[in-house]
């Protein structure tokens, strides 16, 4: 597991080094649930996500639109704005619990 995922390092600036405590810093891990068939394809969640985590998928759901899909889960800051803004209650985001993380690591 790379501890770097949430740490943005600008290559050009003098802050180019991977911070020494990057691995120790508690990284938020998000779990995003999308109920695809509820989505009406308004695109609010994609447009308003501050970290640009989501994008439109190519599949077509029951309502005949393209539901969102997760582009880069590591970017997600679990702010929950997508959940708040979705008119159709189709997207939920929460922090991954410790147990789940451990279980994943064992695999």
């Amino acid at each position, binding site marked *: 597991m790379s501890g770097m995922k*949430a*740490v*943005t390092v600008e290559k050009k600036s*003098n802050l*180019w*080094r991977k911070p020494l405590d990057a691995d120790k810093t508690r*990284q938020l891990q998000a779990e995003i649930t999308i109920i695809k068939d509820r989505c009406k394809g308004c695109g609010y969640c994609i447009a308003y996500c*501050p970290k640009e985590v989501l994008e439109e998928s190519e599949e077509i759901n029951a309502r005949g639109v393209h539901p969102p899909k997760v582009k880069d889960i590591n970017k997600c800051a679990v*702010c929950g704005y997508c959940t708040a803004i979705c008119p159709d209650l189709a997207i939920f985001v929460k922090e991954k619990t410790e147990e789940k993380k451990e279980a994943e690591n064992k695999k």
Partner: protein
Amino acid sequence: MSEDQPQNEIKPQAKEDEIRIGVYICHCGLNIAGSVDCEDVAKFASTLPHVAISKDNRYTCSDQGQDLIKKDIKEHKLNRVVVASCSPRLHEPTFRRACEEAGLNKYLFEMANIREHCSWVHLYEKEKATEKAKDLVRAAVAKVVLLDPAVESEVLITRKALVIGGGVAGIQAALDLADTGYKVYLVEREPSIGGRMAQIDKTFPTMDCSICILAPKMSDAGRHPNIELLTNSEVQDVKGYIGNFKVKVLKKPRFVTKDCSACGDCSKVCPIIVPNEFDVGLATRHGIYTPFAQAVPSTYIVDQNLCLNKEGIIKCDKCIKACERKAINFDMKPEQLELEVGTIIVATGADVYDPTSLQNYGYRKFSNVITSLEFERLINAGGPSAGHLFRPSDMMIPEAVAFIQCVGSRSDRGHLYCSNVCCMNTIKDALLIKEHWPDTKIYVFYVDIRAFGKGFEDLYKRARKEGIIFIRGLPAEISEDRKTHNLWLMGENTLQKELYKVNVGMAILSVGIEPRRDSDIIQRLLVLSRTGDGFFMEAHPKLRPVDTPTGGVFLAGCAEAPKDIKDSVTQASAAAARAGILMAKGKVTVEAITPRLLDEKCKACGLCVKVCPYNAVVLNKDLKRVDIIEAACAGCGTCGAECPSSALYMRHFTDEQIMAQVDALTEQDADKKIIAFCCNWCAYAGADFAGVSRMQYPTNVRIIRTMCSGRVAPKFVERAFERGAAAVLVAGCHIGDCHYINANVQTQKRIERLWKKMERLGLNKERLQLLWASAAEGERVASKVKEMQTIVNGVTPEEVEKSKKMTGKA
């Protein structure tokens, strides 16, 4: 200032027959008398018009010499005085004071420089030197006749100060001024004051803990009743002049109110994690953070660029929920403050050289090659390693460490200058490693070790005693062992004349200091000058080291040049004292060399407005004329040179006065002479320097002093040619180093125009020469005069006649 104008009005000239001049020719021991026949010159002077008495004496600047002048002014009813002696840059104030004490207006005094510009540079040509001295006296007498008495006007000083930059220099300057009793605004663009010193672990040569001695000063500055701390703020605009600056400061929102108790609960929940600038990226911080534990103010701050809450939309409310004291407020708006201050201290500090471009050292390629600033954070107890020095690649203690000196300094691959602090910093760092891990083998690769300060040599000796190995000769290359990440340093030991190949666990590049990359902003706002290195230039390198050419603006710390903490603090206190002097007086006199507008001649064309480097001339559309803001004017005279209708009366350097000097100098043998116009600050001072250094050059040059080469109007040059001068030299400060910011750019334009005109008229344009020479470049002045001899010799009588007839027309 218009209200001051009546008392300084141009007084009518004394009627010609009333003018009584006293001329004093100084022997200066044998300094002048050795190569100039002073008695002869005095005798000659007595024959000049309006000269009432003419005397020569051994030392005119001595008390007796001054008393003689005072006595004569009273006894002989003198109303003008000329002293022919050394450079006016040396003794003009002395003689002006003497005149004033005898009741004569000090602006009715003129000096002829027959030492630096005559006796000292023509040591072996007594006859010609005497002729030249006579010429110079003739010119001084011709000018003194036309001088006007003047009263220096006063400008009131607002008793408040602005300090830009909250590093140790800025803090010290602010504290000193605040303790004196003045209100101080301390502006810092980072979230906390402290600057570079806060990042450093220990200080040399005493090995004091840096933040331990700085933190008390920081909190003193933070709670001083006279200091208003403006962090996270930037100076946006400065208008006005000495004593009356109007400054616009943008105070960016912190989004955290003063209720913050700095508990850090918000930071823990913030999902944003980025490298911390304060730790040079070696540790992380959150989007809401405090840069370091001792920060002042201790209030947390939201990083506006990274926070998810932008444009007023709260997308993430984790910190708001976590804050018990409800101190987080995303409704804060940027504020624009308008401050009125009388003095400004620039303490904007310096940047650190980035060694990435020196590819042979492998910085950014090899993780164990670090800079000295990164090292400071690595060995600092408050840093990412909690003070247990290890190397970045594997967090292990390195067995051997190498320091490489002069990285980015003293080399054309970085900066040419010496960065002043790196040698001692390395010695201190090496001793610190010894303190932490005594068994570490430490190499220092150097060019020269410069341990020049108090206690520095002792520290250097101690380092050698403790077994630190100093090797002269920088490594040519660093390469990395891919498996162990150890480094191989290869180079030549120039003392032993042998090659070395050293294996170390970590290499520290002792990087230099460079000017702030954005110092051009402050330069523009405060109309400062910078040296070729890019640091801000002082008004005089020896005698006014903290003043700037802009009145009321002072320098402190690394903004002026690389320096250590002690020097920065010393300079800050000096700057505070200089600013304090102005504010204690509450007013300042402006030398009466500023222009007066001759209303009836002004056509409001606005050409002078365009060339004024200080924005001191403003177009007044209602009255169809220009207004001169006297306090902002520095008296360079470039407006006067530009004015096509002679509407600007440049006091003490009027058109008539300069023309009279030209006429006097071209009265005899003009076709053998070079008339030189030299700016007071560089070229004239350079010619003085040539004199002090006894550089010998031909005697046929006659120098006329103007404050700036920008004062030299084309008509002066044309007049010299009309009068039959063989050649004309216009000399000023190097472009970019102008004492008046950039007035010499106008000089260049005017000379280029004159060259074109001469070409058009079929004249040899080589007869007009332009020279840039600094005050230290006497050699340039001397060799230019030598070089011009071939031009002078090549000027035929026909050519002279041609220029007499043709210049001035067309």
